[in-house]
């Protein structure tokens, strides 16, 4: 892999079978680490950004309150990023999510405030509206065959307009407390009041335990089937690093207000969608369609149906993002969701998704979203104006994708 001249197909073909076994072991170990660095490049970038701003803000970035804020402030973008990366993997794009979030937020205001429905019913109805929006857009994209760019560009205008219609040129405000908890609430003090919340620490410990068990099981499973696994030392180092990060994160939350409700929602979504994308037939079909639509069709994959459900899913997630945002502001307003689509798209691309489709991960999109979040937050703490924040974020997006393209070219991909 360290060969400066990428091998031709012919060489690679021949080289595969008969490599010197001694050399193999050493280079194998090295290439594992290199491949991992490449794969986790985005994770390392996040750590770098965090360290950079921790220094620049003289530690304010890593204060418990700020850590907690980071999650709550970016929750809705991360929710959108999950749906967006799926849409992008399938080779589409969705420009309408900001408008849909605003529209659903406005509807939820009507349900919860104006009609006075119970909060849970308002939430369910709002999510259903999001699904209907997805059905509408999915229909045009999957079954009429209009490019997603056009359909969702139209959707961006349509649903922004409808949001204004629903709001009737006014803000709707003062939501019930349970509703507000979606964006502002914390799970805390279940065991009484402590300086450091034991529940949060406990959940953090459980998360670490679950991660370790899952990683070890996966590794054992692979070994059982005779697959290559990474060297033990590297495996343990990685586990320890990630565990420390989770531990620090849990401790920070515990010393502030506990676990944000938004974080719980996010954690569930990441877990569920991570499994969907990696382990279910539906997820596999999304990757197959994005990689080569023709080949997927000729393999019996119902591409239209997959496209359709992808946009229904995106609609529901956009609705959820709208609810969280509205809950956080305690206000459904006409400007809500402005520019969300661009942040979500940026998150997906910074997280390693490919513009042509077929490539990307939920985890990558989340980390991409967090990088944007840390940039926003760090620069705000430093008192950098919104104008420079915009410019810096643009640059980061460009550089991240350029790095990715360079990386792929180096590793000999097409």
């Amino acid at each position: 892999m360290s060969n400066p001249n990428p091998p031709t197909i012919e060489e690679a073909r021949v080289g595969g079978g008969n490599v010197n076994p001694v050399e193999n072991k050493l280079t194998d170990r090295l290439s594992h680490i290199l491949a991992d660095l490449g794969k986790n490049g985005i994770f390392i970038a996040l750590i770098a950004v965090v360290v950079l701003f921790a220094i620049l803000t003289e530690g304010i970035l890593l204060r418990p309150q700020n850590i907690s804020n980071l999650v709550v402030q970016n929750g809705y973008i991360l929710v959108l990023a999950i749906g967006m990366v799926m849409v992008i993997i399938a080779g589409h794009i969705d420009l309408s999510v900001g408008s849909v979030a605003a529209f659903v937020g406005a509807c939820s205001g009507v349900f919860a405030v104006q009609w006075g429905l119970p909060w849970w019913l308002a939430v369910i109805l709002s999510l259903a509206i999001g699904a209907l929006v997805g059905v509408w857009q999915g229909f045009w994209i999957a079954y009429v065959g209009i490019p997603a760019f056009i359909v969702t560009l139209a959707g961006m205008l349509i649903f922004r307009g409808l949001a204004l219609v629903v709001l009737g040129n006014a803000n709707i405000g003062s939501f019930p407390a349970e509703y507000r908890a979606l964006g502002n609430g914390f799970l805390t003090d279940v065991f009484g009041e402590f300086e450091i919340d034991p529940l949060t620490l406990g959940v953090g410990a459980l998360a670490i335990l679950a991660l370790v068990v899952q990683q070890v099981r996966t590794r054992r499973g692979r070994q059982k089937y005779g697959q290559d696994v990474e060297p033990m030392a590297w495996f343990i180092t990685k586990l320890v690093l990630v565990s420390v990060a989770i531990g620090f994160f849990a401790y920070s939350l515990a010393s502030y207000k506990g676990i944000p409700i938004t974080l719980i929602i996010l954690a569930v979504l990441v877990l569920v969608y991570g499994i969907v994308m990696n382990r279910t037939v539906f997820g596999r079909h999304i990757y197959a369609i994005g990689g080569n639509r023709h080949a997927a069709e000729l393999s019996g994959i119902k591409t239209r149906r997959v496209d359709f459900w992808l946009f229904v899913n995106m609609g529901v997630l956009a609705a959820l993002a709208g609810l969280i945002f509205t809950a956080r502001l305690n206000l459904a307003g006409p400007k809500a969701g402005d520019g969300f689509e661009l942040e979500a798209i940026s998150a997906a691309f910074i997280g390693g998704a490919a513009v042509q489709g077929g490539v990307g991960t939920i985890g990558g999109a989340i980390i991409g979203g967090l990088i944007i979040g840390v940039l926003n937050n760090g620069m705000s703490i430093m008192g950098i104006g919104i104008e420079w924040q915009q410019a810096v974020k643009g640059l980061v997006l460009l550089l991240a994708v350029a790095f990715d393209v360079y990386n792929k070219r180096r590793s000999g991909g097409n």
Partner: protein
Amino acid sequence: MTTDILEMRGITKTFPGVKALANVNLSVARGEVHAICGENGAGKSTLMKVLSGVYPHGTYNGDIVFENETVEFKDLTDSEAKGIVIIHQELALSPYLSIAENIFLNNELRGRGGLIDWNKTNFEASKLLARVGLRENPTTKIMDIGVGKQQLVEIAKALSKEVKLLILDEPTAALNDEDSDHLLNLILHLKGQGITSIIISHKLNEIKKVADSVTVIRDGKTIETIAKTDVTEDRIIKDMVGRDLEHRYPDHTPHIGEELLRVEDWTAHHPQDTSRVVVDKVNLNVRAGEIVGIAGLMGAGRTEFAMSLFGQSYGSKISGRVFLRGKEIRTRTVAEAIEHGIAYATEDRKTYGLNLIEDIKRNISMASLKKLEKYGLVHDNEEYKVANEYRTSMNIKAPNVLVKTGKLSGGNQQKVVLSKWIYSDPDVLILDEPTRGIDVGAKYEIYSIINRLAAQGKGIIVISSELPELLGISDRVYALSEGRITGELPVAEATPESMLKLMTMEKPR
């Protein structure tokens, strides 16, 4: 000074793993119509690409002498500047631009201030159109005229470049009889004006009509050049086919069982031009353990037949009946076809067969993920195991199954495609050009795999434009021409000559 306008000497061109042209010589006399004949893949188009600079000087060996001058073309523009113009099989016209705009594309007539002079453009275009006998307004858009007329626009475009040597690559392949006649007459007419033409074709009757001499190419070698007076169909066919059919194919003793698949009156129309019949009442069957070949020239409707059968992946207004083990089945979607045990491995594996950015493992499982599903989740270790088994049994040369298929050689890519379909456990496999773009060694492996599948009692349909290959591996062959089955022969009775006759048999009119 010779009378030859063009002489190509000792042209050799190699692609990775394949020698496409080996020491080819070609002499074209000034003012003649010279035909080049050969089977698909013989090297005709490659030779013309060398001549026109598509493969620039330095990527091939040998000399090109044009008008008594050794030339070294770097690209198409270079060769066009000398008066060599090639018209490809797939026309290079922009459908949304007008006839005149297309004629002068990248050669625009400028007036004052460097701006395009549209009056002059249209005027010059109409003069050129008159020369090729096309009565159309030069401002008509290309997409609004038929293929035959588009072909004439291409020739007008060539004339605008003051062409001395016109190369036409299978110019009549997509034309009807009337348009073909007009085109051939035009070539003769241009000959009268001193324009030399090279025409690539395997339609023997039209070669006899227009050509002054014929050069036959086979397996990247020139076989001979025949003068007009000596041209006979038999001689050309014999040259095209050759005689060396030794041990290029593994032995295969058929154990033929019950009928697996029967297709009755299968008809399909062109997807856009829905009045055009592409597959015309095809009847065929395949039995267990049998390898059935479908032979046909380019454009005969082989792939179209297979894809329309496989979940209606091609065409419109499809009709006919399909029986599996005597029971009628529906194959209206690909999923249905797969469910009923039909598999189709495409002729174009990069565009239609593989997800090149994904690894071997996920490509093999792509059509059969349901099999790997347990409690709603894909069992990925099992997937790895299955893929690894295929890597071993199909001899896919890759260090492991996590290698992206885009990095494999053609032969190994084809083995991945075959693995994918074998894993879907079909009764009938349709293999479309299974050895296209694959080197000889890998071809033999693919043939062995095909034999193995037949021995397991599967029914195999092989579509191939290489006649020797088809006759070498099949038990029974069908000939397809203009969408119709024009003959069916047990392989023992089929000769390349008899097959070519059937494959070029035209519809009674």
